[in-house]
């Protein structure tokens, strides 16, 4: 196995005695204090995640917006300059290569932030198609560190650090600007459901900012709490709810597939596609759903499986996302989960388990 990559903040994590673990080829902080404390910090105050392992691509030139809009299933062309758009990236056959956020920084400059595990796959897919457009594509993942500052106190903390832009900066805004710490790209996005920001910048700038956050007693948070936080608000994770083997329409992402767009990659397939699966939210009063556990109907026939599961710290019970076969979706919404040897009654949730406070 090749050696693990390190983010620019690796030294900071070891100083804080974080428990480290390999993730997508990087040696990443799993947790610092306790997963529980980190989750509570984000829901009630603020926490910061080093997510520098994620990939940053830039699309620049006359057709930058046109190209990105064509490659994504969601509507990117229609977004205002200074806005971010969440979208799947699909093949012609509608299967999902990755899910990502595209940031419309200028009318000829777009930042795309992708999952660390998919950097090469995404880049080669985009590269294969960019030549038909009048724009350039560059992978600048190694030049950028990325922090996610999440939680209700995030805005106040950024202001205290002097890195908050002038004027309005609502949810899913994005802006590149100079700060006393150096140039950054700031976006009001995140993966926790709370109000919060993602801050892209060079190593020195991001290191200084991280240290300022530590001085302000922002809780450092690892990938373990990040996963629980996203599950509580039922956000999908590539490799779990999303994969090369099915489409966004199978995974509760119909809202990100804008079939009325004139053309986009996968449109012909997705227009007439009948989903095979349905992504649902289940909880247990006793026990914790874990990835791979079977989901059963009232007659105890297997109809699907858990794609991600955890103990919800906020709710105090086990929660999970599950892909069930659409044809077998029970009208009575009675679901059971096979927890090792035992079959447990599960509750069906129409809405996310936790309502985050994002603005």
């Amino acid at each position: 196995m090749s050696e693990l990559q390190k983010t620019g903040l690796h030294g900071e994590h070891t100083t804080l005695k974080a428990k480290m673990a390999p993730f997508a080829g990087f040696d990443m902080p799993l947790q610092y204090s306790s997963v529980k404390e980190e989750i509570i910090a984000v829901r009630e105050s603020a926490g910061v995640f080093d997510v520098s392992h994620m990939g940053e691509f830039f699309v620049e030139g006359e057709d930058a917006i046109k190209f990105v809009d064509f490659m994504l299933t969601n509507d990117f062309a229609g977004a205002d300059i200074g806005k971010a758009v969440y979208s799947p990236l699909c093949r012609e056959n509608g299967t999902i290569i990755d899910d990502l956020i595209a940031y419309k920084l200028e009318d000829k400059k777009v930042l795309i932030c992708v999952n660390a595990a998919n950097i090469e796959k995404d880049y080669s897919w985009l590269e294969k198609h960019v030549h038909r457009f009048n724009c350039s594509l560059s992978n600048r993942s190694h030049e950028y560190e990325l922090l996610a500052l999440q939680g209700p106190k995030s805005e106040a903390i950024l202001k205290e650090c002097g890195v908050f832009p002038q004027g309005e900066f609502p949810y899913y805004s994005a802006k590149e600007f100079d700060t006393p710490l150096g140039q950054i790209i700031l976006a009001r996005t995140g993966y926790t459901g709370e109000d919060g920001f993602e801050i892209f910048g060079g190593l020195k700038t991001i290191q200084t900012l991280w240290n300022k956050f530590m001085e302000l007693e922002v809780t450092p948070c690892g990938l373990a709490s990040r996963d629980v936080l996203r599950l509580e608000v039922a956000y999908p994770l590539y490799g779990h709810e999303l994969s090369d083997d099915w489409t966004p329409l199978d995974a509760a992402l119909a809202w990100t597939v804008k079939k009325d767009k004139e053309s986009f990659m996968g449109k012909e397939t997705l227009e007439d596609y009948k989903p095979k699966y349905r992504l649902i939210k289940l909880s247990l009063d006793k026990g914790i759903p874990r990835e791979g556990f079977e989901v059963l109907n009232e007659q105890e026939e297997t109809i699907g499986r858990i794609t991600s599961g955890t103990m919800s710290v906020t709710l105090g019970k086990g929660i999970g996302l599950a892909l069930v076969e659409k044809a077998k979706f029970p009208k009575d919404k009675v679901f059971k989960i096979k927890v090792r040897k035992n079959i447990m009654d599960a509750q069906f949730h129409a809405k996310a388990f936790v309502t985050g406070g994002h603005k």
Partner: protein
Amino acid sequence: MASEIPNNLKYTKDHEWALIENDVVTVGITDFAQSQLGDVVFVELPEVGTELNRGDSFGVVESIKSVSDLYSPVSGEVIEKNDDLEASPENCNSTPYESWMVKIKLSNNDGMDELMSAEDYSPLCEE
């Protein structure tokens, strides 16, 4: 922070402790085990009457993000389980040596020789 390893108990390489009282062995997880797991949020234990062979998985202890099997260090019948841990799994973190999981009445001596003293177990707790 060094783990607490009481001298009156025996230990396994799976980081379980065993208290031997005549032919009854009480089993729990060690201080080191709980510190490695982090916040324990769920404990699943076998029914009283379950027959266990040494090495059998008899339950699980779950942290927020992980599931770990519990292995029987000895062979025998489960004569008692600690129901309090279902309601208060966090006790495994705060008082690991009081948070026993099961009491096993020995059917033979399988595994008894392999239980380690505190002194022999202690090097396994170095990170």
